[in-house]
Structures are given as C-alpha cells and as structure tokens.
C-alpha cells in the first residue's frame, strides 16, 4: 500500500517503563506473587495514561522492549499468538505472569520489510516456543490490561554495546523513520510505546518487603537532575535537545535509553515539537521512571 493511498495514523507515542514491580504491586490475576501495594505514583500515572486514551480508537500497539536483547539486528515477534508464563530472571520473586497476547503479524512484517529495504539487519521471530520478555509483558499489561489490542513487538538491538550511543541512535532514528512510514502506509491507527526507564542505576539490595516504600528513592542526586532535565524537555516539546543530549544522558545517568527505545520513539513521532503530557514519575529500586504521552492525534501537522 502506498503512502498517499493510506489513512494510517499514529494516535499517540508514549514512554511506558516496564519494571515488573508495577505489575507485582497491582496484583492482577495473571501474576502469581501478591503485594501490599507500592509504587502508586507510577501506577496512578499509568491510570492517567489509560484514561487519556480511553476514548481514542486505535488498531494496534507497537512496542520496543529493552529486555528482548538482540545483537544481530532488530527482531520482530512473527506469530499471531503467544501464550506462556513469563518469569523475570532478575526479580522472579515479583513477576511470574501468565500471558496470552496477540500479534499484528502483518504490521510487524511491514515494518520489518521497510527496515530491510533501508539496509537495517532485521529478522522475524517465528519460533512458537519463544517466551516473550517481561518488559514487553509489563508495559503491555500496564498500558492495556485487557490485552484486547494486537501488538507489534520489536527487540532492542544492542548496537550501543557494540559501537556507541551515537551509532545506536543513528540506527534507531532510521528504524523509527521506517516504522512511521510503515504505520502510515498500513492504513491502521497505532499507539507506539517505548518501554524504558530514564536513569537506570539500581539499588543492589532489596528490602525484606519489596514494596516497602519507605526504602524507595532515586539512587543519587545526579540521577535526579538528569531525570528532571529530560522531563523538562518532554514537557516543553524539545525533542531535538533530547536527541542531542542522548550520549551524555545515556552515559552519565546509565540510562535505559541505551536500548534505543527513546530515540526510536522520538523518530517514529517525527521528533515532536509539541509538549508531551507527563502522566507520572517515580523511582523503582532507585531507577527513574516517567510515563509520558505525546498525543500526536491532536497535532496532525506533525504526522503527515
């Protein structure tokens, strides 16, 4: 389908972090462990994000998770259904989630093909035994707990590890560009999610009650300053500055933007110059997490 024949649209792009603590604290029936609450600021943030999109029609969710880490290009979930148990290898005490999700394989392949045409290394993941990573599950659940929209799931190509933040960003900008092209050409209305934290230095100990909020705070003042700087750019529509400062941010805040999600998101949104809506900010075992929505549906000039 050609670009000018389509009515494809990105209705919103969101920064939607994935620490499994959020699902754990919410006690959904799919997750085995139970909690006494916790991390409410962020969970209320997700509530506000869901409310913001409650009356918005869309067909699919396109999501990039830094916890499906690939070193040979970007991979796409390529089967219509995935159903299994996801156990977080780092926090298995908090996250053992029984998932059952649908994939928009057509849209996944359209993005895959355009990326391949652009010279990016890509691969469809068609092994039915593959287990979907907990980052995808957490963001998917917190954004859409009904799981009633099909997903397109992209892996995190760890090009930053192999080369540099600059090279990673160059590749993610290109991936974002072709993602946008494919969505617009698909005729579908889509929400785009980058599943990553901001500053990403963890505490290396866990309190006896993981949800003990008296122990929760940012790991250092420097991390706080970086998070607030980025949030200010989000809130004032300064996406280009975010991209410009991505190397310093990623290195100095040990930020999870190293997985490429934030760069890809901003590129997919065509580097928005309108304000993002901050729905929530909070820390999880010391890492900084913001829930931000760029409502492209309200800024059509930025989508064509």
């Amino acid at each position, binding site marked *: 389908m050609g670009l000018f024949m389509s009515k494809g649209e990105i209705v919103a792009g969101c920064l939607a972090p994935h620490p499994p603590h959020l699902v754990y604290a919410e006690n959904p029936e799919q997750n*085995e462990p139970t909690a006494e609450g916790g991390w409410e600021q962020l969970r209320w943030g997700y509530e506000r994000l869901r409310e913001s999109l409650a009356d918005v029609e869309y067909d699919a969710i396109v999501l990039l998770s830094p916890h*499906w*880490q*690939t*070193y*040979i*290009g970007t*991979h796409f979930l390529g089967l219509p259904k995935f159903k299994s*148990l996801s*156990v977080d*290898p*780092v*926090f*298995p*005490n908090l996250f*053992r989630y029984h998932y059952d999700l649908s994939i928009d394989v057509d849209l996944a392949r359209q993005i895959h093909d355009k990326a391949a045409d652009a010279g990016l*290394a890509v*691969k469809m*993941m*068609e*092994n039915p*035994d*593959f*287990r979907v990573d907990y980052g995808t599950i957490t963001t998917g659940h917190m954004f859409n707990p009904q799981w009633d929209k099909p997903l397109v799931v992209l*892996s995190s190509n*760890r*090009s930053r*590890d*192999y080369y540099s933040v600059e090279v990673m960003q160059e590749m993610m900008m290109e991936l974002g560009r072709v993602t946008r092209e494919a969505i617009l050409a698909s005729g579908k209305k889509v929400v785009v999610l980058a599943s990553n934290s901001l500053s990403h*230095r*963890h505490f*290396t*100990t*866990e309190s006896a009650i993981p949800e003990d909020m008296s122990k929760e705070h940012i*790991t*250092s003042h420097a991390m706080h300053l970086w998070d607030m700087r980025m949030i200010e750019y989000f809130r004032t529509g300064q996406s280009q500055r975010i991209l410009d400062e991505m190397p310093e941010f990623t290195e100095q805040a040990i930020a999870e933007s190293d997985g490429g999600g934030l760069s890809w998101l901003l590129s997919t949104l065509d580097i928005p110059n309108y304000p993002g809506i901050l729905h929530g900010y909070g820390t999880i*075992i010391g890492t900084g997490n913001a829930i931000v929505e760029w409502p492209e549906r309200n800024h059509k000039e930025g989508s064509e």
Partner: protein
Amino acid sequence: MSDGELVGSYIVPVHPHTVLAADQNEGWGRLRDAFGEAAQRIKDSGADLLIIYSTTWPSIIGHQIIADPNPEWVMVDNDFHDLGSIPYSFNIDDKFAHAWNQANENRGLKSRTVAYHGFPIDVGSVVALKLLNPDNAIPAVIVSSNVYANRAETTVLAKACMDVIKATGRKAVAVTAMSLSNRMFTKPIDPKDDKIHSLKDDEWNRKILEFLGEGRLEDVGQLSRTIHRQIRVNKVVAFKPMWWLSGMNQNRNNLTGEVLAYEAIHGAGGAVVHLDPAASGAGDKEYDEDDVEYFLGERNVLDAQSDETEIVSEIVSAKPSNSNGPALWEPTESKDSVNSAAAPKPVGAYPHARRVGDLLYLSGVGPRQPGTNSIPGGPIHDADGKPLEYDIKAQTHAVVQNITRILEEAGGSIDDVLDVTSFLVDMDRDFKGYNEVWAETLGKVGPTRTTLAIRALPTPIAVEMKVIAKAPSLE
C-alpha cells in the same frame, strides 16, 4: 566426613549452536566433540557435583542460585531462535544451593535461591548442562553473574562455594559458561563463513588460551580487566568468570591446562578448556591482588565509572590502619592458642584466643575487618586525630561477627559465650546503639556482661569486647 575438593574446572561456550547446529559448521562440530570429551573426563573424575557460573544469567540483587530440584522448560535463544528449541529437565542439588546461599551470607554477600516453576534457565547454563551432563547423572547447581559485582565480590562468591564443598565432602567440577572475545557479527551470516570477528580478537583469544593451556588461571584472572577492554562488548561488566574460577582454584597458576577446542561462534570466541588441579610445575604469580575473604558490604556502584575506579574505591574505603593506628602483628602461636585468618590481626604480641581447660579466653575483639583492616561504620577519628562521624551499631555488629569467627575457628560458635566485658569510648553517645545490637545478637545467647567507659582504644574504634567462652570438646 572427609574434606571435599574441586576435581576439575572447565570453560565452555554459551551459544546454542553446539546443541542445535553442530552439523552446519565444522568448527561448531569440533566444539561439540570437545564438549563430549569434557563430559567423559567429568564422568571419569568421579565428580558428584557440577557447578555452573553463567555469564548469560545476569542478576542485580546479589547473586542468585537455582534451587528448584527439577527445573523443566523449553529454552529458545533471543538471537538464534531460528536454530530451534532446547527442551530441558535438569537435576539440581537444591540442598547444596541452599547451603551455598547461607555460606554467601556468612561471608557478607547478598544472595538468594530461586525455585519457581518456569524460571528461565539461561542459554549458557542450558548448553553446558545438556552437553556436559547429558544423562543428568551428576547433580548440578547454577549461579548468576551479578552485573555490579567486582573482583572482591566474585572471589568471595567462589570461596563461599568452596566452604560448602569442603564441609559436605563433595567432589565438585566448576564450569564457567562464557565466551572469550564476545563480539559477534551484527548481521546474519552463512554458517560456513563463520570466523572470529577480528584478527585482534583472535590474537587475544589465543594468548588467553596459551595461558590457560599452561594452567596459569590466576594470570588470566588478573588480566581480566585488560582483556575485557580489549575484546569484550559490555554485555556483562568485566571478564569476571575468570575471577570466580580462579577463586575456586585458590587463585593458583600451576594447574594442568588443556585446550580441547577453540572455534568461532557467529564471530565470538568459543573454547572448551579443561583445568586439572594437578600441579603442572609452572611458575608462581608475578603479582597478586588483595586476597579477599569477606565482602565488606554495599558495592560502591555510584562512583564506579570504570573498573579502575572500582579498584581505587575499594582501596580507599579499606583505610588500612597502619596510616591511622598502630602497626599490625601476626597473632602469637602457642600450644593452647587459637588464631583465625578470618579475624583481624592483633595490634601487639598476643593470640586471638587461648584455651584453658574447658574455657576459651579471647583477647579484646574490635570491629576491624580481616584482610583490609577497614572499620564498618567508619573510624572515630582520622590519622590526625580529627573526630569523624561513625556508626556504633555497624561497629558493634562487626565486633560480634569477629567474635563468631574466632569461636568458629576453635570449633565452637557464638552460643558458647559465657561472659563479656565491653569497652565504649563514648558511653553517652554510643550506649543506646551498642545495647540495641547486643539485644539482637549476644543478648539472645545470654552471657553475663559488664560495660565500661574508657578514654581510648589502640585503633580508631568505639567499641571492643573481652570474651570468655565455653571451649568445645577436643574429641
């Protein structure tokens, strides 16, 4: 029960090609054959335990140890999912896993066991156990690789493991699942075109294997940071499996080494290496790093921008007392003396303890840490005598820990304490915190106690205890 021992060590590659696609590339086939040779050697050694340290299982909250006696699932690799699936059902020694976890905590490490249905055993561990232990005849344990752990923590992890091996009389084999150079091609390749990613990576790999072939394991461990900078992508910080494996082998350089295979796997360096504990006659270490017995607490992660700064911060935080206190002495030896390498060195000519009849008399015990001489909770003044802020509760905890170590050296435990005389340099400031820790620890044992205020102690500490304890039977 006789002392357990390590009967062999192996280094094996992590990628699934050796299980799923050994026929697609001659090199992958040779690695598979080498796995088979290693499996036979392990069987012939009479090993009754396989211990896997896997670089493809990163952890954040300390180290994690699999303790599910029979984990079962189907493993699919994140990158190489098109090669197929690997169903697994392993025989895990959960009792050893729990004992190791406890031993880790005894040595100051953060650690926990994992026993959840469906927990995703990592690709490196799956490959190692599938090919080294195909019939599950030998029970295994698997430990994660902590992303923040430095050399000290990783070395102590190995020593805690050896504590349990010795205590339980096991004949163990240690396995590190790891790549040498870990840079893969970032695009798909035809299997027949596989090769080491670069000449530089290949040269470094061959140098590492030359060392290992000569049994010089500790040399490789001490070059770990250099190797990491030269040929490693930052997937897991540092070339740390070599720290663990060297720690398991008493940091020796005279093992008997043999490289069974070295090949490329999608550009990364994969090798199967056997290190036999039999002495090879090779030379000793050219230099040594601090031999750490106990992990001193929170990793200094916020200041660690590189491995070098981690080392510096370790050294600085250790604050050797010879720059802030009297010189250290070796504990004196006599027929009845009890001295422990796990206790801080004396500041004069005396033993840690002395046995007289049914009683043990301990010399005054402070909070200084063995090896580094650091003071948990901080010293009370600097080298110039300028007062410093310190934590009396941390110091008191450390005193109790040191008493425990000395009593354990004598074959007893903290439960044997009968009478304690405590000395505080600032009764008004510190009694409350000291008393709280006492209640949580020795207070539960129930010895008699006298607490005195004094002007100073020889080192910059706030609390010291003089202990009389019941001596364990000599039979």
